[in-house]
């Protein structure tokens, strides 16, 4: 399972970077979203993937039996997803307002504050 997910993470990063390099600001947002999903998936996979072994002590037992899925990356990735969600919403609103102010969706038109 892990190699498959690793491949998927790679594809997400590649697609994200490709979108970032396009000239439209909407594709910029799509690129940022894809890359951040790739990173979320990376954190999720980092704890190791185990199907059907939740980190719960079974009835009657007193200790957790050895192979169990690590719950911490899932908690972390939830935090990261929520943060990413909020930031994406803000980024969309910002792109919308910037598009109104500049009047173009080509990144090359956004060079007034540059050097």
């Amino acid at each position, binding site marked *: 399972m892990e190699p498959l997910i690793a491949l998927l993470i790679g594809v997400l990063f590649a697609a994200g970077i490709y979108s970032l390099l396009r000239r439209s600001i909407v594709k910029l947002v799509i690129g940022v979203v894809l*890359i951040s999903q790739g990173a979320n998936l990376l954190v999720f996979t980092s704890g190791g993937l185990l199907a059907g072994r939740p980190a719960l002590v079974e009835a009657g037992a007193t200790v957790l039996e050895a192979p169990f899925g690590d719950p911490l990356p899932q908690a972390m990735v939830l*935090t990261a997803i929520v943060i990413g969600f909020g930031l994406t919403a803000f980024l969309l609103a910002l792109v919308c307002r910037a598009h109104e102010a500049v009047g173009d969706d080509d990144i090359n038109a956004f060079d007034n504050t540059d050097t």
Partner: protein
Amino acid sequence: MSEYALLLPILIPLIGVVLLLLGARSLAVQRAGGVLFSSLTFAASLYLLFAVDQADYLVMQMGAWEAPFGISLVADRFSAVMVAVSSFMGAAVGIYALSEIDEARLKKFFFPLYLVLIFGVNGAFLTGDLFNLYVWFEVMLIASFVLMSMGGEKGELEGGLKYVCLNLLSSVMFLAGAGIIYGKTGTLNMADIGQQLMLAENADWALSSSMLLLVSFGLKAGMFPFFFWLPASYHTPPSAVSAVFAGLLTKVGVYALFRSYTLIFMPLFPEVQNILLWLAILTMVTGVLGAASHFDMRRILSFHIVSQIGYMVLGLAFMTPLALAAAIFYLVHHIIVKTNLFLVSGVVIRMKGSCDLAKVGGLCNSAPWLAALFFIPAFSLGGIPPLSGFWAKFALVKSGVEIHAWWAVTFALLVGVLTLYSMTKIWAEAFWKKQPEDVDTTPAKPVGPLVFMVAPIVVLSISTVVIGFFGEPLFEFSERAAAQLLDPQSYISAVLPQPAEVSP
């Protein structure tokens, strides 16, 4: 009891945010609350600084979960001095904002957001957990995103977009790096990661996440070649916002770099030393050349942030006790001076309606006091004795000479000269030359009395002079802080309950 000193610089701004949101209607409440809570945070940070200087380390385990499992708050001397000086800037700029931030921005919750920014910055300095550091970065960034773009002017939105996108990318890399290191060590506690790497015979497997974090923190710190968002955005918002960004945000990135290579990835430092050294040199040189080519006061100052970051990273790359002490001294000096320069540029805009050097002039005659107030931080930045910048540069160069890093020393001195060149450019254009006649200089309607803008500038200028003339206590403190940074084992044993036994 003194552990609770750790909580205050985080809790006070948070309480302030909640109370200010409750009193949202009244602008007077917003103003008074913003100043009150940022000043209280400063007071708390001073208490923390004294407590840490006595106790060496203050550690608090959140929810009483023992160290590698819960989230630790840790303050050593380095983080305590960073909290103190950034809360100092928070209080000073809070007062300045009274007279610069207009009603529209106040109604969009300027002060609560400003306190969220201080909250995030202090949290980032005090946490001892890598993922928690990521969360503090995000708290700080989301507040800064809104502060940067809340005015809704074209420049702000454009600059804001660049700022937001590149910082999001940096966060993604941070997250990926933290995820990979968690997968390999099974912990996110900085002390625990550091210990596992030190005990490992060969720590090369941590190189990938260390590089991801290096790029991420380098991006946030504005290092070469990741600094492009900084000069493209910092000159767009009101000066109070630029000033607090210039003073604090990039320094959090520098702090994180220091923490990474003196604690988390300490055993990997030899592998990155040369990379850091050359990145630092290139950061200094490109930053100062960018500044030399510009003709707008705030753009020049933005590029100078980049070039000065190079000096601090250079101190990290040397990694001798003197170099680290010099870098810490440099950070303190730089935060005060750079914030102050942006505040001065705000007063220039208030008087002349612009800080484009082609449009302003004659300030030496019309406002000689402002010329004096600009002179102190500007020439401190350039490294003129006896101001604080001279001692910072002197110690750094001395530490470079001691380890025969001739190239780095040569570039550091050269960049110092070029810094002086662009400061004299501002001086000659804005202050000495006559006011150009055919230029419209009607300034915008001022928001509040000038005294609230000038008072913080005076206080910060006095601090610069005091550090210059009586800098010895601060330098000795920096040396003690540097000694702590070079001894990660004591940090680890202060944080972890029973060393070398816990390994899940």
